[in-house]
């Protein structure tokens, strides 16, 4: 990013190639429409180009990138809620639709700040420090919220208890 800031055009192409899938995946898990997700990803990269002079090495580039993306997605949600309410969680492409739907349902039941941490950690692979910078919270908070979210997901994702034992005792 610093090379691109200094005017190195190919450096941005390398950044784009390196992060386009990860960024698109992050957005795609938040926006059901693939076309809209692509537009938002395009906007994020456009913002990077326009404001490259404002970038400083105070945080990692990934932090910078995901913070922009998070703000854009929040703006998208806000606009959609105002004009055309959209279901927060809709099925997206995945290996097993049933499992994916279960995962999404479980994630949808988490607190928003916990869900964000899970998404950034489990799918984007951000470190605790990076997540703390993106969300502007202490690292200890990230750790505790992630553990709480994972334990909640454990309950949400576990198969329903077999009711037969209970029913079986019935006469």
């Amino acid at each position: 990013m610093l090379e691109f800031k200094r005017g190195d055009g190919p450096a941005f192409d390398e950044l784009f190639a390196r992060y386009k899938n990860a960024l698109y995946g992050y957005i795609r898990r938040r926006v059901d429409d693939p076309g809209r997700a692509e537009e938002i990803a395009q906007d994020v990269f456009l913002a990077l180009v326009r404001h490259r002079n404002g970038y400083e090495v105070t945080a990692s580039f990934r932090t910078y990138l995901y913070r922009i993306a998070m703000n854009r997605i929040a703006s998208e949600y806000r606009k959609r809620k105002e004009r055309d309410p959209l279901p927060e969680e809709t099925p997206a492409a995945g290996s097993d639709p049933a499992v994916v739907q279960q995962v999404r349902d479980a994630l949808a039941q988490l607190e928003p700040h916990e869900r964000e941490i899970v998404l950034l950690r489990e799918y984007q692979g951000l470190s605790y420090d990076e997540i703390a910078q993106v969300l502007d919270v202490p690292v200890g908070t990230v750790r505790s919220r992630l553990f709480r979210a994972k334990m909640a997901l454990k309950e949400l994702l576990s198969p329903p208890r077999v009711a037969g034992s209970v029913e079986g005792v019935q006469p």
Partner: protein
Amino acid sequence: MMSHGVEHEELQAYLDRELDAGRMEEIARHLSACAECSAVVRDLQQVSAKLQSWQVEPAPASLRPPAPEAAVRPSAPVIETIPPTSRWRWRPMIMALSGTAVVALLILAVVIPNLLQSRLSVPPPPEEADKPVATFGTPAQSGAPPPPPAAAKPVEPQRARELARKQAAADQATQPPAAPAAADELAQRRMDEDFRKSVVAEGRQEADNKGEVAAKSAPAPAARGAVGGAGLMSAQSRANAEAEEVRRLIAYYVTLSVEVKEFTPARDQALRAVEKAGGYVSEAASAETPGQPRQASLTLRVPADKLPGVLAELRGLGRVLNEQLSTDEVTEQVVDLEARLRNSRATEQRLIAVLNERTGKVRDILEVEREIARTRQEIERMEAQRQNLMHRVELATVQVSLIEEYKAPLAPAPVGTATRLRNAFVAGWDDFAGMFIGLVFFFARRGLILLFWLVVLYALWRRLKPRLLRFVGSGLQA
């Protein structure tokens, strides 16, 4: 949740390798021995594995790096994606600024009228309030006749005190509550002044009763008549009647500027008017400067009772540019001088009696004669002072400035175009050279200061520029 010295939160951090190496080893050893924590770790791993089942498609091929021109020209979607949080960030600032402005306006609205009122309510200084000066500064007001000179307005002590009290009460009523002390002081000064005059009048009455003549300006016939028929009047009423004879002795000074059409006839007419009134010219000066109107400065001494007529005649000479009347009351000085004169004369009479009736040593006789001579000198000096004061009262001083209407001389022959063009070039060159010299002097005087501030501002800009750009950029990116 704490279990065997290991927090369960640390187990997730352990899986994510977010602990330091020592702690990682401790937890690894603990997990080999603790079934409960091992179960938690397994649960966490299972959750992560299940989460990974949700994968999304890779970025479409249509997602390409933004074109450079698109980065230069803002597009609509980017503007639309500015989050409301940015707007909300500005809203408190705008509201705070608006609130500050409203408060400032309210304060100004309250403070300014009070300031104006307090300024307007400040009473004039007592000296100015008592000073008998009348100004006829504008020609429109110059037609107003001055008060009668040598206005013999009798002073009645009791009535004066009462009037002073009423005036003080009226002044106090018109004064705002903020300045009662000033009104009281003014009223007290007036009452003291009138009381002093009444005392002076009584003192004069006693002196008259002793038969010593104190020459005054002509007493009022009415008062004389009252005194003449005093056979039926008691001593007290006669004393009061005599006190009324005390007159204010006022010296008048007038300054008058008149613009006249014809200079010499006007000046001669002014001199004739003074001569006709029985006055004289104290000083006279004329000035004639090329390119300027002729001027004459006359100092006239005019009998006080003829002053209105003379002033009217002087005003008729032309257009009055300025007229100012001021007065100087010398009553107190004259009365004081007369009292001292009476004492000195009495002393002189006693010394003469001593010299005539008693015989003694030559040395004593010489001593008495020296004392008589000294007293005589004092008497003559005081008489001269009194005469001078009375002269100022009897003859008003008029300072007249006669200014001829300015008639511009015929303009000289116009200069040729070539000469004017040359002069214009010369003047332009002078201005040009003057500008450079001015710049050199300016930088010589202010250059170091300018350089200092330029360096400071440049350093500040270099330091703050990234932050400003980041601040603006974060708003747009958001």
